[in-house]
């Protein structure tokens, strides 16, 4: 089984006018042609959705955050200075909204209790022997919750770098631009994220 994401679009979308760059579209919108905004939404909605999903692991919440990202981008379009790519700016909005969402969720007592209850009900499905043949591995719900919880425990920076890399297949250069860091710093964040996840997830496995 291929572990690469299936990137083919299954829904139809309007043909993106390849002659207009993102900046051209933004300028057109700022001049009053707000229908052009649809082109930007259709171009970036799936990427932004995947990024948000990496934070919240809930499809409805991810859709809401994606919607909020584009609305916020539209309302603040006059503040876009054309110094970075529009997509970089858009990702920063979605990352901030997602992190704020997670902070609010942590403050909510019921959400905290729910995640504690879910964590404590982990069954030991994670037998290492089952994983020798990847094609035969079926991911149980408890396995997903384990991984999601451990991703959430990463620091905000490690989590952001990890999600952009794994959920949206961003290169280190693209991640560095979005997070306003050097590529070396991004590499370090990714390495630490992988090491931390490795350490924490391995305790769920029985050793041979």
């Amino acid at each position: 089984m291929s572990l690469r994401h299936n990137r083919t679009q299954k829904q139809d979308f309007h043909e993106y006018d390849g002659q207009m760059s993102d900046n051209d579209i933004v300028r057109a919108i700022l001049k009053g042609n707000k229908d052009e905004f649809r082109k930007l939404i259709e171009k970036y909605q799936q990427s932004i959705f995947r990024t948000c999903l990496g934070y919240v692991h809930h499809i409805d919440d991810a859709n809401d955050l994606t919607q909020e990202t584009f609305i916020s981008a539209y309302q603040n379009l006059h503040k876009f200075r054309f110094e970075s790519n529009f997509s970089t700016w858009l990702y920063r909005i979605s990352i901030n909204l997602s992190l704020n969402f997670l902070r609010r969720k942590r403050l909510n007592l019921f959400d905290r209790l729910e995640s504690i209850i879910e964590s404590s009900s982990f069954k030991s499905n994670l037998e290492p022997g089952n994983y020798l043949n990847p094609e035969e591995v079926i991911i149980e719900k408890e396995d997903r919750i384990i991984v999601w919880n451990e991703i959430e425990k990463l620091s905000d920076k490690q989590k952001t770098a990890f999600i952009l890399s794994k959920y949206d297949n961003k290169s280190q250069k693209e991640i560095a631009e979005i997070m306003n860091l050097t590529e070396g710093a991004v590499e370090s964040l990714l390495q630490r994220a992988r090491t931390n996840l490795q350490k924490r997830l391995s305790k769920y496995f029985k050793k041979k």
Partner: protein
Amino acid sequence: MNCSVCQENLKDYLTGSLPEDMQIQMLDHLRECGECHVIYSTQLLTEKVIATEASEWSDSFLATRVLAEIEALEKRSHVSPDFSVLKRILQPAIVVTSIAAAIVVGILIGNLYSKTLHSNVVPEELVLLDDNSIESLNLIITENN
């Protein structure tokens, strides 16, 4: 194969991009080495969970919903008058007026208090008393005796 080589090649092993003989060596090592097996299993689990999640699709009507929401927000901002300018002028004016009013009230209260304390009006009980006609205590004591 040793653990170091195995762990270096785990990523390629997961994606099946190693040459066949290397794949077999990796598999043999993973069957024998518990530590490498745990590392491999956690990586595989993480990759699978993420791949499953990342294959989800966003709402196909999202663009329509966003544009509808933007239009609704714009309509709301046009309907309500822009009080921001008035607010910017009125707020400091209200603050200054409140402080001035507090000062005036304070002065008035202060004035009332001091009038009461230093009043020249003599209470009724004392009106009849005249210093000159008050008999000395000595005289009273002498008469009673």
